[in-house]
């Protein structure tokens, strides 16, 4: 392991120098001579057959240039393949880049208008006449299961796939278990709403047959492969350019229909084309997430030891299986057991197609849902058994002696996985200490100033470091500084800063000798794998470590040639000089003429698991159903802390997103498949003033053994336990009223109705 000089320090973000001066460059900032603006006509109906599209009036509008529908795209409308864990059985459900004969959700692209301005493009949209024969909609998973209406008649079912997560054999347990409990839980559909919506700018160079696409993010290399195939181009004829982004959260940067339509439009018209998603569009076009229900059965011994967990999970995946649309459901199944020791597990997850916006991954995919189910279930079970909920968890949390610990295997895909390292009780204890559980728990269920006080706790794991590999290159510049090139992409997490810290330590140079960290775009490295599964720092950082070793070797070799000594005798001084023991030296700038560069790849087939615990103190107003988060503590062990300031910032932001999911955010559909919460006046996003008291604590007691940094992912964990923790805190507050939340979001009306129902039941019991 390398020596720490910058790693572990709260180095200020390099990115902020441009952001705070208004010098950030987002895709919306870009313009080109002759630019056309695109607007997309989206289906107003959830399910129907397109009878006709009449664009005559739209094309007659001054400033409207071209209109593209499926007819212009050709006899074969391309479909968008699955990026993560593709399976042949899912092929029928891949989304076409534009609707052909059928529309399957409100928001599905039907036509693209190209015009001289965005406003004219929208004027033209209003003039396109689309005749859609309405088909019976499939608005929810129950209708999907009934299969009276089918989204894809040719497959005869609305069930896309069923995953099974299995370990041991729970079947043998139930009959002789001390205690068994069944519960049903549900999480609502919601998603990431980034400050900056998505955007694409495409330029076609007809003379050279080259395509440049700005606005790439997350997985630029994978998206280039899809686009090249769809457009019949060689991969290296396409440059994907990453720009600054206002947030990713898993939703930005997947391959969406627009990622084909805009480049296609540029080639079709021979002019640069730009499309910027607007807010209303984002809420119907970008991936949705999290809508899941479960029926669970748990068996325990009387002492609280968990024996088995079994159940069914139903996930509403919307109208198509998008690039990563299966991940949430499979994660629910595989990670329902969380950081706990559960010997026998069988979870079946059914992915049901409905006439709603397709789903994809949103920060902590599946884990947020699974944690709500499990942590809520545990509090109910602990109460039944008369065991303190903290003790119940401590009894079942995994310890260092049990690592590596095998978790349930996912079928199909036969994916086996194991936790790498850690003592999961440590973060629980730290969390209890930070929130002062011993003292505050005395408040549970008490009325203070008319509000019930409650404390909730939950534990979690965060998966990270997806393979197969990541690449980094280090180059010596002519002035003797170094530049870092890496295949990871930035989604606002402070990647340039973290990578500069890692590179400076590995190269043993002052951080200001690093000229820049260049990431994300396809021109920088041969092949890159991007940022998802909390992998950027772990994988990209490890690749930088390897490249740094090769780079230092290359510098020593070049210096030795000039200085007439053995490479092993060359000492590198402060990133400026290469020197021999007898005092001869050559500067990095002098060496740069020889063109020194090193590129390395870090490969990894295992996952690194961060873990932690969160606790919350809430006050619930029984008359309005309102919840105030009085205090919130998040503790996570990430193996190795690169930059505690970046890390805590990510954690607090993730907690706020989690609180949005727990209390506010809900994509509500009606029975016709119309989205009822299509603006930020109805889709409630948390703001800074809503949740002012959040504290993040980070530890690094158990480095990951699977990468040279010892690091584990840190971007997603903060969101994972929030739903369960808040629901447990609300249950604790309302314990005197016998309220047990089973569904999110915990809106005032839901809490008030729960109180009313519990009250009525008690009155009936008395009578």
């Amino acid at each position, binding site marked *: 392991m390398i020596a720490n000089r910058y790693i572990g320090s709260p180095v200020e973000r390099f990115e902020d120098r441009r952001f705070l001066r208004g010098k950030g460059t987002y895709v919306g900032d870009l313009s080109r001579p002759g630019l056309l603006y695109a607007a997309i006509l989206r289906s107003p109906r959830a399910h129907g057959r397109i009878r006709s599209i009449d664009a005559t009036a739209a094309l007659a509008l001054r400033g409207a240039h071209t209109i593209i529908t499926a007819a212009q795209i050709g006899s074969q409308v391309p479909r968008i393949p699955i990026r993560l864990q593709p399976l042949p059985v899912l092929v029928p459900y891949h989304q076409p880049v534009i609707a052909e004969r059928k529309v399957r959700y409100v928001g599905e692209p039907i036509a693209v208008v190209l015009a001289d301005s965005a406003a004219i493009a*929208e004027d033209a949209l209003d003039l396109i006449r689309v005749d859609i024969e309405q088909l019976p909609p499939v608005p929810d998973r129950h209708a999907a299961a009934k299969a009276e209406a089918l989204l894809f008649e040719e497959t005869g079912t609305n069930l896309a796939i069923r995953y099974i997560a299995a370990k041991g054999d729970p079947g043998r347990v139930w009959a002789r278990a001390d205690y068994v409990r069944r519960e049903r839980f549900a999480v609502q559909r919601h998603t990431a709403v980034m400050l900056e919506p998505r955007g694409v700018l495409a330029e076609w160079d007809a003379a050279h047959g080259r395509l440049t696409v700005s606005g790439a993010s997350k997985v630029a290399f994978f998206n280039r492969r899809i686009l090249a195939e769809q457009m019949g181009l060689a991969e290296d004829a396409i440059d994907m350019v990453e720009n600054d982004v206002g947030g990713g959260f898993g939703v930005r940067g997947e391959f969406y229909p627009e990622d084909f339509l805009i480049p296609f439009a540029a080639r079709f018209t021979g002019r640069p084309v730009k499309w910027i998603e607007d807010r209303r569009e984002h809420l119907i076009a970008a991936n949705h997430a999290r809508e899941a229900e479960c029926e669970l059965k748990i068996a325990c011994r009387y002492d609280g030891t968990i024996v088995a967990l079994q159940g069914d999970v139903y996930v509403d995946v919307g109208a198509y299986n998008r690039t990563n649309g299966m991940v949430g459901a499979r994660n629910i199944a595989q990670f329902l057991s969380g950081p706990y020791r559960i010997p026998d597990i069988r979870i079946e997850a059914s992915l049901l197609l409905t006439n709603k916006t397709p789903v994809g991954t949103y920060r902590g995919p599946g884990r947020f849902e699974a944690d709500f189910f499990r942590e809520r279930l545990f509090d109910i079970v602990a109460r039944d058994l008369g065991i303190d909920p903290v003790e119940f968890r401590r009894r079942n949390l995994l310890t260092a002696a049990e690592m590596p610990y095998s978790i349930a295997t996912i079928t199909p895909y036969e994916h086996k996985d194991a936790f790498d390292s850690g003592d999961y009780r440590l973060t629980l204890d730290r969390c209890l200490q930070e929130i002062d559980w011993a003292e505050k728990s005395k408040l549970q269920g008490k009325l203070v100033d008319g509000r019930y006080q409650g404390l909730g706790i939950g534990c979690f794991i965060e998966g990270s470091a997806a393979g197969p590999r990541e690449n980094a290159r280090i180059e010596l510049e002519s002035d003797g500084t170094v530049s870092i090139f890496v295949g990871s992409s930035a989604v606002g997490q402070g990647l340039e800063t973290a990578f500069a810290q890692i590179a400076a330590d590995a190269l043993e140079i002052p951080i200001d000798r690093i000229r820049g960290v260049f990431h994300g775009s396809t021109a920088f490295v041969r092949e890159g794998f991007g940022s998802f599964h909390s992998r950027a720092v772990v994988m990209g950082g490890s690749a930088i470590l390897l490249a740094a070793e090769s780079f230092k070797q290359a510098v020593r070799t070049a210096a030795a040639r000039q200085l007439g000594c053995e490479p092993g005798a060359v000492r590198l001084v402060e990133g400026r000089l290469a020197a021999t023991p007898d005092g001869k030296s050559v500067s990095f700038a002098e060496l740069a003429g020889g063109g020194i560069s090193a590129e390395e790849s870090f490969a990894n087939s295992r996952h690194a698991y961060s873990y932690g615990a969160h606790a919350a103190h809430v006050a619930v107003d029984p008359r*309005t159903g309102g919840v105030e988060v009085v205090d919130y503590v998040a503790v996570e062990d990430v193996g190795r802390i690169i930059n505690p300031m970046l890390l805590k910032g990510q954690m607090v932001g993730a907690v706020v997103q989690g609180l949005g999911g727990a209390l*506010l955010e809900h994509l509500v559909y009606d029975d016709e498949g119309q989205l009822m919460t299509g*603006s930020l*006046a109805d889709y409630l*996003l948390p703001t800074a003033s809503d949740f002012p008291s959040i504290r993040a604590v980070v530890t690094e007691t158990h480095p990951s053994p699977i990468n040279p940094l010892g690091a584990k992912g840190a971007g997603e964990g903060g969101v994972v336990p929030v739903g369960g923790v808040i629901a447990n805190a609300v249950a604790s507050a309302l314990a005197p009223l016998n309220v047990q939340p089973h569904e999110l979001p915990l809106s*005032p*009306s839901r809490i008030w109705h729960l109180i009313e129902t519990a009250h009525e039941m008690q009155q009936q019991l008395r009578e």
Partner: protein
Amino acid sequence: MKAPAVDYLRPRTLTEAVDLLAHASVEARVIAGGQSLVAMMNLRVASPGLLIDIARLPELHAVASYSDAVTLGACVTHAAIEDRRVADPSRGLMPRVASTLAYRAIRTRGTIGGSLALSDPAAEWPAVLAALDAEVVLYGSSGRRSLKCTEFTTGIFQTKLAQNEILESARVPKLSPDARYGYVKLCRKSGEFASALAVVVTDPRRGYSRVVSGAANGSPLVLADTSRLVAEGPRDPDALRGTISGDLDRASDRHFDDFQRNLHTVAAMRAVQQVLV
């Protein structure tokens, strides 16, 4: 979310503005702060052919204090009220209300006249000015007229403002030093429109007492029996709750569901409790 093309005119006087409004050959809308109208245009739920910008008309920024009332020009912003940069007839109620209205960025441009003229059912000013027994002054081709706020708003986004009229000012009676008020806004997050709103004003010296529910699925709802009860200084919470319930029951046209009814009751209870010492 780009607004459709629209003509834009900025008259120099209120009379000129009313003339333009009266003689427009296309759908003309008056714009002041634009905090609702521009959003509606961007969402293309409003697409006027002509915008008449009144934001800079000096007569609409006038604030005058009389012995018994203050008139606030229609283009006084929420922020000006919040910051007490204009005379306050309400002894602190209006600044307090203004500070709960949307976000500061909206408050710096949004105007009291715009809020009243639009009469969003969940907005603060229509309910608060109704509780203060304020009047609006409307200026049109045929001159000026005044209407009580309680009569001005007739329903959801519906008022008695004629097509050729501009809301010129609000005339708000001054509260006496003995007056007390209560204000409760229930909403799910900061800056949001209210789920329920209650305003109580009681001014024994003027023999005045009124309780108003806002965000009440229509125009601001005066709770008549509760208003009378407040004048007596109710001590019994159950009686108070019963009276509020009775007032809400009579408003059957509002079609409250159980939860909304509960929220309005709670908001009114709490607002009344703020005036009782």
